[in-house]
């Protein structure tokens, strides 16, 4: 299941989706909005996605992961819109027969989603706002 959604993400539902009677292991990564960025208070984040491409890129990532690890179930759900600190922005879940594979596959998927999927976030502070990682200077300030 791949989902780009404006609604809050139900982790339990995702775990149920990926679970299988032949899977002994489920690994779940939950990304949440932090209340600080570069030492400043984050009021909220605005997430935007190029949805059709995001879904197709994530599908490719899952395909690659399926070649490398024995995935029995998998799910990637990414939130878009306005998110407050503490809210869940992304959930990746995979199930595999054994636990080592579940950790490796889940980490590969979230790492790849973060580098490949066309999704952007803007941090909104008390004194301004900023598209994350868009400009080189932001890197140096971090």
């Amino acid at each position, binding site marked *: 299941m791949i989902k780009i959604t404006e609604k809050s993400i139900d982790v339990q539902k995702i775990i149920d989706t990926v679970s299988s009677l032949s899977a002994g292991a489920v690994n779940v990564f939950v990304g949440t909005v932090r209340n600080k960025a570069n030492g400043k208070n984050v009021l909220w984040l605005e997430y935007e*996605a190029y949805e059709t491409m995001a879904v197709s890129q994530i599908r490719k990532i899952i395909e690659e992961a399926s070649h490398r690890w024995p995935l029995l179930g998998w799910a990637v759900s990414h939130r878009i819109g306005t998110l407050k600190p503490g809210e869940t922005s992304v959930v990746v879940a995979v199930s595999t027969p054994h636990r080592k594979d579940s950790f490796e596959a889940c980490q590969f998927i979230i790492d790849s989603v973060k580098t490949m999927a066309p*999704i952007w976030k803007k941090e909104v502070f008390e004194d301004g706002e900023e*598209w994350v*990682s868009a*400009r080189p200077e*932001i890197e140096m300030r971090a």
Partner: protein
Amino acid sequence: MNKYRVKAFGITKDLLGGRETFIETQGQTVADLRAALHSRFPELSGLRSLFIAVNNDYADDEILLKPSDEIALIPPVSGG
């Protein structure tokens, strides 16, 4: 002249002043489109990176564009 409809996301939406812009170029490659974009929107060069997607996939500079292609600007992604 070739005319392409270009979608813009994230910071490029702000720099181009909208979700979609039409760009005219003499050439037909991704590289030609990139050159035309940079000459019309010089601020694009201030980005850490800028990819161009064609039909929902990252496109190399030598790819030939068709008018029916779905073209999009992909500034540095920051999902997760």
